[in-house]
């Protein structure tokens, strides 16, 4: 089992400006992918950055297994690969492993590379990689230290549509093969529906949860790979769109 993530009343304001996020409460229990969708500016990145320690929440807490999250427990993939251009693929993936002795580090790197299908590119420099490969390196770098929590901040939105679909397969593969709780931010609801077993819609600022649906795990209509043309898929899609649209009724809240 993975450890439980408890977020309560998480709020973030930058300086004296009104909050851009929260208060937001959420519990994640177990493996698999939870997708967070929301329009640009709704506070999605701020949310993940608060969880990773890149930002300090103004109020509220985020606990993993009952204790405050430590950076070592979190893997983060940004929208851009953010590889160190002077390091080979292998050494980029080893970036978060300097605490390990050499043989273990090498083993962890090999495992992470294999997981995302990069073994053949181990000695390439970032400048030699395609966008999709570079993002897979970033994914492997985040996974190599074996985090409990993997935070993906729109990791696919800079990729072309074909590459994006292959990347989705890689993320699904990761979710099915290692024990990790994945929070995936996207503004693409088809992507959320293709990958996640839970979808959360954020609206803001300040970013708040307006919809939280768990996708029935054993319903054959949602078996992987998901059939995007199915009636169930389309109905779910409709619900998400309705939640995303700032309809007058919802605004009156």
């Amino acid at each position, binding site marked *: 089992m993975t450890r439980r993530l408890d977020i309560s009343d998480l709020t973030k304001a930058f300086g004296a400006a009104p909050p851009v996020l929260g208060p937001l409460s959420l519990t994640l229990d177990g493996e698999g992918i939870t997708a967070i969708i929301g329009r640009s500016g709704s506070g999605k990145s701020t949310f993940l950055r608060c969880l*990773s*320690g*890149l930002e300090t929440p103004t109020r509220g807490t985020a606990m993993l297994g009952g204790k405050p999250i*430590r*950076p*070592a427990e*979190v*893997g*983060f993939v*940004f929208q*851009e690969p*953010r590889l*160190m*251009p*002077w*390091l080979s693929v292998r050494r980029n993936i080893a*970036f*978060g492993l*300097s605490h390990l002795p050499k043989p273990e580090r090498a083993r962890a790197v090999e495992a992470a590379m294999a997981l995302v299908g990069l073994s053949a590119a181990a000695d390439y*420099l*970032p*400048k030699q990689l395609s966008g999709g490969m570079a993002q897979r390196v970033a994914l492997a770098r985040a996974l190599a*230290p074996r985090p409990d929590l993997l935070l993906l901040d729109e990791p696919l939105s800079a990729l072309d549509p074909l590459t994006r679909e292959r990347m989705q397969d890689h993320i699904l593969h990761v979710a099915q093969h290692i024990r990790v709780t994945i929070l995936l931010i996207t503004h693409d609801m088809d992507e959320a529906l293709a990958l996640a077993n839970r979808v959360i819609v954020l609206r803001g600022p300040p970013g708040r949860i307006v919809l939280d649906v768990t996708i029935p795990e054993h319903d054959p209509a949602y078996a992987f790979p998901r059939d995007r043309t199915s009636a169930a898929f389309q109905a779910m899609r409709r619900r998400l769109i309705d939640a995303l649209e700032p309809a007058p009724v919802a605004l009156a809240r």
Partner: protein
Amino acid sequence: MAEHSVTAAALTARHQTAGSAASVRRLPGFGWSVGLIVPIMVLLLWQLAAGGAWIEADLLPSPATIAQTFWAMVQDGSLANDILVTVYRLALGFVLGTAAGTVAGLLTGALPLARRLLDPTLQALRSVPSLAWVPLFILWFGIYDTSKVILIAVGVFFPVYLNLMAAIAGVDRKLIEVGRVHDYGKLRLMLRIQLPAAMPLYLTGIRGGLGLGWMFIASAEMMGANNGLGFILTNGEEIGRPDQIIVAILAFAVLGKSTDWLLARTAERLTDWQDKLHPETGA
């Protein structure tokens, strides 16, 4: 390998500027020699003009005379000796200036407080013309090598300092964040992200420093030296030997260019991870 890449660079350069690129590209190995056409033409015209006595040999000796002087200075060992003296002073000053510039650049780049304290003063000193230091340094450090080495170090210091400071302070925040999500402390951020990321600009600074070092050593040796290439210049003026002056100028040009080329090659090798369209060397 070296030959090949220089050729490629020259070809690329021509390709960018001239329409005749296609014909040059069809002659592999010819590209680099294009740069020699102008000097050779000038030499020929010059020799003709001197031979026809259109210019006074007292002011501008013929290339043949200069070649003779050059050969004489090679044979009596004086040229090699003066070059060695100059290169020795330059090397000392270069190492000293690079070291000081590196320390100051690291400090001010990494610590905003250090930058606020030091940078205004250093910027003010930077605008002092090189020659203005000479009398003071001679008073302080004597007429011999020390004052010259220090003057060169001053010249080398500023480009190294400025570039390293800017490079470290300007490292992409996005890369720093990658270190932070991996729980890197300040020291590790510096060693594993900021320093490597700063390398290209730092090396550019060192190259600029070497260039200024050559400028400053000419100043240093022209004011009170009894050997070195700069001394050949002033001595040539005193005894009325323009040929000797021109030999020294040429030596400066060749030495300056080749040391810069060496540094550029080294820098390129150290930073070949950069995703650049054209190499900088060789042009």
